[in-house]
């Protein structure tokens, strides 16, 4: 049976980047992708970090850049809004071509990529490695076997590798939003801002988004918090939203999926294996966004796991260096966002409006270099005393 240094399951941003990073360090890396074509179909809002942040991971190319994001607007249920102009703060991607470019970069660094390869089991860690088994979907399910010193799960929100390794379980009720997105045409041209809409009538427990793409098109979607009280589907809510705000637009494409807002994993590693990207719960629990986080986790994995491979110590204890690096870089901030998310779930519409107005005061204050936090706190105490209790419960 063939043996490699590293076996990576999933050729999304995390899988491709960690493969690239380890191949560059001289290891033999094999990457398996279940789908016949990397990056297709797109399951993403496609908004990522600035060009400078992206260039750190991949040479820039017009092939996958759909345009800059120059700011953001947040709308509360009553129509109150906060707006912030931040030229080039983000980038709208063509996510399919972005993923393909990352995979190409990995292959050019020596990674072997096989598509249409479904992995079914990852074996136990014995004799210094794991035996991966799967099926080649392009060849009538022909059996596939390979040994690897190190196994990496980069299989996204529904990670099975993480479950097989005992590192994660199915998401608890409420940790995944039901999300739906349409690609619309004839979206009125305006500033290249991302617009976010909160409120129980628009998207209970979540938010709706409008991310402009090219030629008057935009990704328009929303996520709803799935609870026992939810009576309508994400589709019902999105159809209402689109009918009200974009009555003349046509639906060019439909994307659906679970947006996780995960609690950090207790452990992202075990003997001879680790999880990178969303399978390792790296995405932002408040916004659901995960592209940059996935790349950052892959970069940290490349450094820490590369050293572990070099030293021939693939014990869970040694691989934990990766998790420590991740926690220091993003994980701790994510833990804070997880608490914020739980607070947001408790907000009624008046409180969301209040939060948007407060944010407005913060933004105005930042621009004048003088934020009136005392005034905001006073307004919370006087106008929304319940909110303070809710915050106390969610944050501590």
């Amino acid at each position, binding site marked *: 049976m063939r043996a490699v240094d590293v076996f990576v399951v999933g050729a999304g941003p995390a899988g491709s980047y960690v493969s690239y990073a380890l191949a560059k360090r001289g290891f033999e890396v094999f990457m398996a992708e279940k789908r016949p074509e990397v990056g297709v179909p797109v399951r993403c809002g496609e908004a990522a970090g600035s060009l400078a942040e992206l260039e750190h991971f991949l040479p820039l190319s017009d092939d996958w850049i759909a345009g800059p994001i120059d700011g953001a607007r947040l709308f509360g249920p009553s129509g109150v809004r906060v707006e912030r102009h931040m030229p080039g703060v983000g980038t709208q991607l063509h996510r399919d071509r972005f993923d393909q470019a990352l995979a190409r970069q990995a292959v050019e660094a020596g990674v072997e990529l096989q598509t249409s390869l479904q992995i079914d089991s990852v074996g136990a860690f014995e004799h210094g490695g794991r035996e991966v088994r799967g099926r080649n979907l392009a060849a009538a399910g022909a059996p596939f076997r390979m040994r690897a010193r190190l196994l990496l799960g980069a299989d996204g929100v529904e990670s099975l590798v993480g479950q097989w390794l005992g590192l994660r379980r199915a998401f608890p009720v409420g940790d*995944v939003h*039901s999300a739906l997105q349409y690609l619309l045409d004839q979206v009125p041209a305006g500033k290249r801002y991302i617009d976010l809409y909160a409120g129980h009538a628009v998207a209970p427990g979540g938010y709706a988004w409008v991310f402009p793409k090219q030629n008057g098109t935009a990704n328009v979607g929303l996520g709803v918090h799935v609870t026992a009280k939810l009576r309508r589907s994400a*589709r019902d809510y999105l159809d209402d939203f689109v009918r009200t705000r974009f009555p003349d637009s046509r639906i060019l494409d439909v994307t*659906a999926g679970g947006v996780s807002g995960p609690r950090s994993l207790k452990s992202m590693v075990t003997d001879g294996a680790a999880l990178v990207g969303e399978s390792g719960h790296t995405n932002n629990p408040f916004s659901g966004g995960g592209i940059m986080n996935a790349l950052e986790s892959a970069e940290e994995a490349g450094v820490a796991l590369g050293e572990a491979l070099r030293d021939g110590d693939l014990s869970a204890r040694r691989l934990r260096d990766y998790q420590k690096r991740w926690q220091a870089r993003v994980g701790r901030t994510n833990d804070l966002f997880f608490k914020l998310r739980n607070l947001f779930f408790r907000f009624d519409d008046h409180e969301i409006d209040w939060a948007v107005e407060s944010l407005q005061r913060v933004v105005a204050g930042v621009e004048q270099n003088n934020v009136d936090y005392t005034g905001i706190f006073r307004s919370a105490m006087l106008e929304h005393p319940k909110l303070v209790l809710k915050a106390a419960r969610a944050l501590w």
Partner: protein
Amino acid sequence: MGRNGSFHIAIDDVTCVQCAGCVSICPTEALHMQGLTLECHDPTCIGCDLCVRFCPVVALSLHALSAPPVRAEA
């Protein structure tokens, strides 16, 4: 909520976009991707209804199978 083996999740293959969101939330791992197709393993489904309410494109529906007459060991 339910009893193992009494339920079935019907999947509308035309509507389903294979996002696998339901797979990630199914508490009993009854839903799974078989290659690129979604499938339900009925004996494992407990009829909790979570996936039906979750599905963003409304492709899933819950059906009660004829319940087994008695449980083997009561």
